[in-house]
């Protein structure tokens, strides 16, 4: 019984109480979001708030069950969980029920369950198991390939449902891999890709070419600390571009600005390549390669955006970036959401006094847009408290992860922190118009049993692993 006693003493109660606080705050806000005069009791289980109370109670029972199981169990059965999840994700494509256009749900009697929610913890277990193995090395292509398959397989299956929002969550593993030694270059390129993607949609291509060119010069200066070459490159290239522009003006050909810039840049680039090949400056070579592939990427974005993405995705991204404004169409949700949050002011309108979140102006008030109720009724002060709580929780999880002796526990802990963070970032970012509308829940806050339980399982397995951090794990 000694271990059992140690268990309760070793649990990180701080994390537990933050979890409980977030779940209760969520419950209160769900009550306010779907409040109905004729069903005033918060315990009325015919309403969402009454149901959420039941989900929270059930989540506590699930959490307790997870804590009293030996921690080795999760290490030992990591692959079994993962295998079961993959099986369910395949099964749901065949026997799942289509809700809102996605085949994501199993419906058994009155009970609905979404296997993609549980894929998050099982994939985390699998990644931790794989990467904590003795023979695992990031350096080898085989190692990277294995991790990549483990992460991408569930993501692809979820994409087939299709549930883009839940699939994108798997991108969070990139940060986990980075912590475990993945080259920072990969992270840099991932960030560059996202930035380029956005910029290529936002600014005209010729301007982007100029930006990229200036970026390349800046990188060159930072790496080589040689002003002379920067001046030279700038002078030659702008000279070439001006030349082409002048020719265009004189002949009256009326060329596209994009063609003019490219027309000036390509000869300049050719000259540079020739010059560098004689001086053998390796770093500059790399910069030029990145520059060229960035330009190529820019041109492929248009293709991907117009040919591969679906219309509602395009609309949401366009709306977010302000390219297309349609407050009653695709931008409706975000616009109403911003109005609701913005109308809250500094201290909010007060509990149950929100007008925007009551009258169905804001869609999905109790699920994806639950943060609107916080913003409207509790104002900036209340929103800040919620954001502090979440950030506190994430940092706490990182601290816990770093104190683990076993690589398995540490990797799993990072996965938990980063997956939760990703949901937080996308969900709240969406409600305040900083992220496109991607329907993923706010952890512990949003209405719904499936997601609450999945997040509870995710978190409590880590609490259990952390509680036995002093033991030797398999």
């Amino acid at each position, binding site marked *: 019984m000694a271990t059992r006693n140690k268990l309760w003493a070793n649990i990180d109660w701080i994390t537990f109480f933050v979890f409980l606080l977030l779940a209760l705050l969520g419950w209160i806000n769900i009550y306010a979001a779907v409040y109905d005069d004729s069903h005033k009791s918060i315990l009325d289980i015919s309403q969402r708030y009454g149901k959420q109370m039941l989900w929270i109670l059930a989540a506590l029972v699930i959490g307790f069950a997870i804590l009293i199981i030996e921690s080795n169990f999760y290490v030992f059965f990591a692959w079994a969980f993962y295998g079961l999840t993959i099986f369910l994700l395949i099964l749901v494509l065949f026997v799942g029920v289509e809700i809102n256009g996605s085949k994501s749900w199993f419906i058994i009697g009155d009970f609905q369950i979404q296997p993609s929610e549980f894929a998050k913890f099982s994939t985390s277990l699998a990644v931790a198991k794989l990467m904590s193995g003795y023979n695992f090395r990031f350096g080898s292509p085989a190692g990277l390939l294995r991790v990549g398959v483990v992460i991408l397989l569930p993501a692809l299956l979820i994409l087939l449902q299709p549930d883009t929002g839940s699939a994108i969550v798997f991108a969070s593993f990139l940060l986990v891999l980075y912590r475990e030694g993945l080259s920072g270059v990969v992270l840099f390129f991932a960030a560059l890709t996202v930035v380029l993607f956005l910029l290529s949609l936002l600014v005209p291509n010729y301007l982007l070419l100029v930006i990229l060119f200036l970026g390349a010069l800046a990188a060159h200066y930072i790496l080589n600390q040689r002003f002379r070459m920067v001046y030279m490159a700038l002078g030659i290239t702008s000279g070439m571009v001006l030349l082409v522009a002048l020719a265009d003006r004189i002949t009256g050909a009326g060329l596209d600005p994009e063609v003019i810039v490219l027309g000036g840049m390509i000869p300049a680039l050719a000259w540079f390549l020739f010059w560098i090949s004689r001086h053998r400056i390796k770093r500059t070579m790399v910069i030029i390669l990145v520059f060229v592939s960035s330009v190529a990427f820019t041109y492929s974005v248009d293709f991907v955006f117009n040919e591969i993405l679906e219309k509602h995705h395009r609309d949401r991204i366009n709306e977010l970036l302000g390219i297309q404004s349609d407050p009653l169409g695709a931008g409706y949700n975000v616009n*109403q959401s911003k109005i609701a*949050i913005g109308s809250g002011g500094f201290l909010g309108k007060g509990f149950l006094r929100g007008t925007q979140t009551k009258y169905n102006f804001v869609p999905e008030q109790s699920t994806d847009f639950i943060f609107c109720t916080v913003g409207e009724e509790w104002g900036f002060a209340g929103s800040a408290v919620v954001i502090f709580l979440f950030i506190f929780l994430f940092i706490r999880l*990182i601290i816990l992860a770093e104190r683990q002796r076993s690589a398995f526990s540490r990797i799993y802990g990072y996965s938990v922190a980063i997956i939760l963070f990703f949901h937080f970032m996308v969900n709240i970012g969406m409600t305040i*118009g900083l992220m496109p509308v991607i329907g993923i829940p706010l952890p512990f806050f949003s209405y719904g049993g499936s997601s609450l339980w999945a997040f509870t399982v995710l978190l409590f397995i880590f609490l259990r692993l952390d509680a036995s951090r002093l033991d030797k794990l398999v």
Partner: protein
Amino acid sequence: MAAFSDRKTLITGIFVVVGIIFLLRLFQLQVADSTYKRFADNNALRKVVQYPARGLIYDRNHELLVYNKAAYDLLVIPRETGRFDTLAFAAMLDVPADLFTAELKKASAYSRYKPSVIVKQISHEKYASIQEQLYKMKGFYIQSRTLREYPRRIAAHALGYVGEVTQAMIDSNAYYQSGDYIGISGIEAAYEEELRGEKGVKYYMVDVHNRIQGSYLEGEMDTIARIGRNLTTTIDYRLQEYAEKLMQNKRGSVVAIEPSTGEVLALVNAPSYDPNLLVGRARGRNYSLLLSDPVKPLFNRALMAQYPPGSTFKMAQALVALEEGAITPQTRFHCAGGYSSGSFRVACHHNQSFEVVESIARSCNAYYVYAFRAILENPRYASIREAYDAWREYMLKFGFGRTLGSDLKNELKGMVPTSDYYQRYVFGTARWRALPIISLSIGQGELGITPFQLANYCAMLANRGYYYIPHIVREIEGREIPEKFRVRQESGISRSYFEPVIEGMEQVMTAGTGARSAIPGIAVCGKTGTAQNPHGADHSVFMAFAPRENPRIAVSVYVENGIWGATYAAPISSLVIEKYLNDTISSQRLWLEESMLKANLMNPSMIPVNDGDEE
């Protein structure tokens, strides 16, 4: 992997940076920028509930029994009202000024943003006259509702009434909201879901001046109201009206059923009330008046009054005795002016022996005491208690001691005691004997049968052994009536045993206790009875079906304090039957109709005195 542990700083840094970006953005939206507050003000939405009209209710020949008339509720959104003259407004609406101000205060306390009803059910005429001025009142709205109207003023208990939902109903059913109407009794309650239809909601965008800017999201969120389904009942309104007239100034009930279908042709309670009293603004006041009335007009006697059935119970005993082999149609029992065993005595008034047929025709008590002893002491059963249990099973099959499962609300079970009951209260540890429970044989003792059950039992006799669960709705517009009403309910008695019993019932009318109520040209089979009443004069009971072959109507009549079945219940039954089968009352029976219409049992001095014998 300690080598990479510095990378935690970058990851933590990302968390913090995102948190700070969010806080800055929230500060911008919520504190720095006031445009969103303005947007929110413009974003007012008005939700207008569309109340569907309740379904209409018809009689079996498609005569209208219940329809709707328009009424209007006045709503207020306190935040939107400007300055106005409360007194003048209240006067215009015909509402006491203090009540009006109190309602306004209540509405403000409830919500400044949401509409509250402050004056309910303004009549169509009133509304027409004030419509012009109302238009100018900011913050006040009209919502149209419908109220029930009963053109024939009959069948109040069967039709039931409609009232506002209570908080308990709102809590138990998410469909209802404060101020909604719901069927509270009778058909209105039993067929609430069919009658009410489906509410609709329309959302309008309104500006700060509360002018409608158009429908919200192009009506995408609106739901269309679906009007209620019309019902065709099984009631024959002429029969119902006639029976109600016959029962005037009496207490009791008439239940008429079509045996071949189980359809309820008439369901009369006396005294009754005008259903129009329980409608609209006067409902509350009238309801409490009716509730406090000593003659209990709200009491649904037909379904809820439980009387001992008296001699009408004898046919059931004969049938069970025959089926159980306790007697044969030829078995004779001798009546020596009653039945005696030691100090125990059941009175009767014959001095001869009878077979089944005559025992019914002459209503011999002694015969049934013998027959019941034969049932209880049947050697087929190991004990009297077992025989009693078997007997009780038959009673349940006949529809006694349980609800029949009709579509009428408030059906009561009545009482046929279980053997446990007798074990506990009568026999205790002693051995079971037949004598202490022998009065059951003549329909007395611990028995409670409702008029509804008695009519159903009569229909079962008319069908020679089965019945259909009695029901009051024939057709639901666009829907089937429940399947259970079309399933034969078997009595468990062989068809052949019914003939002597029915022969006896016909002789009741030709030569027996019901002879005064015979109808020329119609073979009526009936049975009189007297229900013992410990509180005063006994009740007059009669049940009958007609014609003998292919019966079309089965009737039970109770007249409280009428004593003999033959005095009131039998004539009323016969008139109801004659009216239904022939549409008119034959000239040689007009005197009987006249005397029934005139009979007044509400006045204590008119109540006849009970002077002895059993029927």
